[in-house]
């Protein structure tokens, strides 16, 4: 070990000379001395760097040694977190989302309907129950499985003490060529909002169009292949096959796929301050003897069974702005989606069975503005169009009213840190026929544990 010794010696010699040279800095020192001093300084700097390298190596060697001998009773170094127990070191990243809500509304949520839209019985629409309630707590686990796979699960704990698996999938990490394969249960990649978990939504609830056409959010058991084009311009294509587990599918047992979807998204930057993404997706689902609840213009909901196919087109766009791309102080996000659902097949009410053909659509547009650090203001406007449904002989029973559900929501949220958020949301909901329903929602959302990364 000659090098360190030499280094120390040189350093020991260099420091006093350098120091005295600095203190006695005479302006007219001869150029030779100046040159000598510069060379010496360079030498000193070089050794300083090398010493630091040695120090870093020594530190990592020490850490390794500590890890190799966990039973060593050497005094613990408090500054460095102790090497985790080997068995637990491979534990997945754990995160928990806690959230709760106060909901108040001028009309009874129990009578909430989307007139003119066929929804599965027991669909989760509207503002839910009034008063204080715990909302979904979401437990997330994720880790690399091996050099080829990664796995993640999101378990939802519902306030009624039940539990559901929101997502549980494995995903490749090493296919290359821009390909990623996913298998298991996951939220479909259609649209913009669909693949996002509830805690990353900008409003407390999902848009009406998602409630009417995608059973609030479409998740399925299946496989997904995504491909990212090797171009400067972002272009991502995806294809999915699934069981058709949720509405508009019906979870029937069949050998083939109950759901198929194709997605295409593109996007990019416009200077440093703006960026955008837009996409077009289509989802096909099959249903057989699907239990539906129809809300005619007058009277109580009617139970019915639907067998046939559904196709939902989703057009989505999002544009974000932040001065110089620095979103810390202020930023703005504009987002909108248009959904169009076509259902055709057979509808049976009691013993009457005839064709059903409907073309329905819906859209929402929302803007979120962070006007100062931690505070955001949002506005959302949305509408549904039931079209002119054809129910064959059942048409008179189900005659629509031509009512078009509409809703406006105003949101204000405050985030003390990136792990907590408090939200106030006011809505004027004209989904039902009659007077508007005025809703007030107060919500908290907190995240514990692993620092989740956010999608676009």
């Amino acid at each position, binding site marked *: 070990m000659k090098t360190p010794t030499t280094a120390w010696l040189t350093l020991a010699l260099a420091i006093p000379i350098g120091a005295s040279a*600095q203190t006695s800095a005479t302006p007219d020192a001869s150029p030779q001395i100046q040159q000598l001093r510069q060379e010496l*300084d*360079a030498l*000193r*700097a*070089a050794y*300083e*760097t090398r010493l*630091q*390298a040695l120090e*870093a190596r020594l530190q990592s060697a020490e850490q390794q040694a500590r890890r190799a001998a966990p039973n060593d009773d050497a005094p613990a170094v*408090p500054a*460095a*977190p102790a090497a985790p127990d080997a068995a637990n070191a491979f534990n997945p990243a754990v995160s928990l989302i806690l959230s709760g809500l106060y909901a108040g509304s001028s009309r009874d949520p129990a009578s909430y309907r989307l007139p003119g839209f066929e929804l599965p019985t027991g669909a989760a629409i509207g503002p839910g129950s009034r008063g204080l309630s715990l909302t979904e707590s979401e437990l997330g686990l994720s880790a690399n499985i091996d*050099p080829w796979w*990664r796995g993640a699960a999101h378990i939802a704990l519902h306030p009624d003490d039940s539990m559901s698996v929101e997502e549980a999938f494995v*995903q490749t*990490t*090493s296919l*290359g060529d*821009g390909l*990623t394969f996913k298998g298991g249960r996951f939220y479909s990649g259609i649209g913009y909002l669909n693949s996002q978990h509830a805690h990353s939504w900008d409003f407390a609830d999902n848009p009406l169009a998602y409630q009417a056409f995608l059973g609030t959010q479409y998740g399925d058991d299946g496989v997904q*292949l*995504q*491909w*990212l*084009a*090797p*171009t*400067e*311009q*972002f*272009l*991502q*294509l995806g*294809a999915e096959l699934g069981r058709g587990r949720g509405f508009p599918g019906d979870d029937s047992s069949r050998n083939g*796929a109950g759901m*198929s979807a194709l997605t295409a*998204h593109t996007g*990019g*930057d416009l200077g*440093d301050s703006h*960026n*955008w*993404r837009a996409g077009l997706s289509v989802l096909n689902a099959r249903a057989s003897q699907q239990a539906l609840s129809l809300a005619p213009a007058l009277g109580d909901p009617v139970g019915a069974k639907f067998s046939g196919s559904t196709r939902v087109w989703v057009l989505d766009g999002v544009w*974000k702005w932040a001065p*110089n*791309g*620095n*979103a*810390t*102080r202020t930023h703005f996000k504009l987002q909108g989606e248009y959904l169009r659902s076509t259902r055709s097949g057979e509808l049976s009410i009691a013993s009457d069975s005839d064709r059903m053909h409907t073309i329905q659509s819906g859209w929402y547009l929302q803007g979120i503005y962070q006007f100062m*650090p931690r505070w955001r203001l949002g506005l959302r406007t949305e509408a549904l169009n039931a079209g002119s449904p054809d129910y064959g002989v059942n048409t008179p029973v189900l005659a629509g009213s031509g009512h078009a559900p509409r809703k406006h929501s105003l949101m204000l949220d405050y985030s003390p*840190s*990136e*792990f907590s958020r408090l939200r106030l949301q006011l809505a004027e909901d004209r989904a039902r026929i009659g007077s508007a329903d005025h809703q007030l929602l107060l919500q908290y959302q907190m995240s514990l544990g692993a*620092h989740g*990364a*956010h999608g*676009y």
Partner: protein
Amino acid sequence: MKLSKKIIGLITVATACIALPAHAALKVFACEPEWGALTQELGGNLVEVSVATTALQDPHQIQARPSLLARTRSADLLVCTGAELEAGWLPVLLQQSGNARIQPGQGGNFAAADFVRKLDVPARLDRAQGDVHAAGNPHIQTDPRNIALVAQALAARLQQVDPAHAGDYAARLADFSHRWNQALARWNTQAAPLRGMAVVSQHKAYAYLYDWLGIREVAVLEPKPGVEPSAAHLQQVLTTLKGTPARMTVFSAYQDPRAADWLSKNAGVPAVRIAFTVGGTDGAKDLFGLFDDTLERLLKPGSRP
């Protein structure tokens, strides 16, 4: 099956439409400007560097936006800080990139913080302490000695992922190290008056800079890392400064100057905006300029009696 035919058709058409660019250069995706600049120094025309963030953006808070995803897709090498600085956005890019070369643990994934001694490693991990980084303070680029260490490791990594040009990288490293050591000697001499100086920081971002220059941090404007300065906390800083006066408040180009300006007005402590990384100020055009400019800015109020 109809659908799978459709998919294959779609992919074939898409692939056919895209003329694959015939770049021989190694594609490098740098998370922050300093690593982009360093890679450019060490790779010259052998590399094609694309930088994900600018000096005017907070590297903690970047969106995993489409353009970044498109760039990670074709990157041969990722050069980032690591130490959880990019925890909020890089994992998403990596998961969706479909690029096996740059996944953690692969040769194409380079984290600069792995190669330096880290400061501010928290003894206790608790978010009640703010946005703390378990691995230690990630802002390692503020000490030029760290740049030298990272340069060594990065050159080795460039040689590993692009062995055909190993000799070129070695020669460029030797040249860079020579120039860097000379500059370092110059900076050490220049910065001598700063030793022992007391300062206030906006964010706990300068631990390495202070460690290098022997500067004392007497207060931080953010009550906890990542938490915006509050009026109550600023009053507290004011009280602290009465007992231990500071020469200046240091803040970075991307940060809101209002808290530092407030202190300047109420305590007479000048606010000094430093580049923090390449491109943060007009003078910080490259890595050498970054430290020239930083020292110049610190010395201006720092040299007053």
